[in-house]
């Protein structure tokens, strides 16, 4: 995969398509954290009546 740095617009679009098609792995500590407090988040929205 090329490094992208100030590529022309058409090359950026191509690069974006390539990256999207490669379905890169997600490395997100925040996502893990939010998943770990899912029950708390759900309890909050239920207590506000946001979910029937």
């Amino acid at each position, binding site marked *: *995969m*090329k*490094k*992208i*740095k*100030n*590529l022309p617009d058409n090359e*950026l679009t191509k*690069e*974006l*398509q390539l*990256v*999207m*098609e*490669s*379905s*890169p*792995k*997600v*490395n*997100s*500590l*925040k*996502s893990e*954290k*939010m*998943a770990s*407090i*899912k029950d708390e*988040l*759900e309890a*909050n*929205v239920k207590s*506000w009546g*946001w*979910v029937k």
Partner: protein
Amino acid sequence: MRPYMFLVNASGEYSLCTMEEHYPVSYQESELYQYWFVSTGKRSIIKCIQFQPLGDFLFNLCLLDYIPEKGELCDQSISNNGDVRVVLWTVAWCVEHHLNRFPEHIVVFSGNSMGRNKLYLRYIQMHRAKLVSAYIINILERNNDEIVFYVQKKVNL
């Protein structure tokens, strides 16, 4: 690999921002609800906004940078690309698009740092009038100075 499409603002629909204010976005149809764009500030950075399902109705908003050296999407990088305003409008536009498609969904998000959360708070405060006309936004502080933002489209109520 599912097909993706380039999005334009839906005509006639309420929109938080104009096309000029946000980056063009590509939407990838999958269970991950991914929106892609290129941040063209000091350098070009591929970014991905993902709505991570946490349950039937709850979705975590992730803003991820593509790291070419690792070939992965990461939320730990600080790009300082000089285009924070455009990036945040792009995020707002994606939230709006997602909630227009799925008005029953609730979006939650939290910054990686207090500085990031303060930035989000500042922008929400700056555009409060515009936002509250269409959305309910609740902001809760958790332990260790962590803040969680909750967004629901008003049509649900």
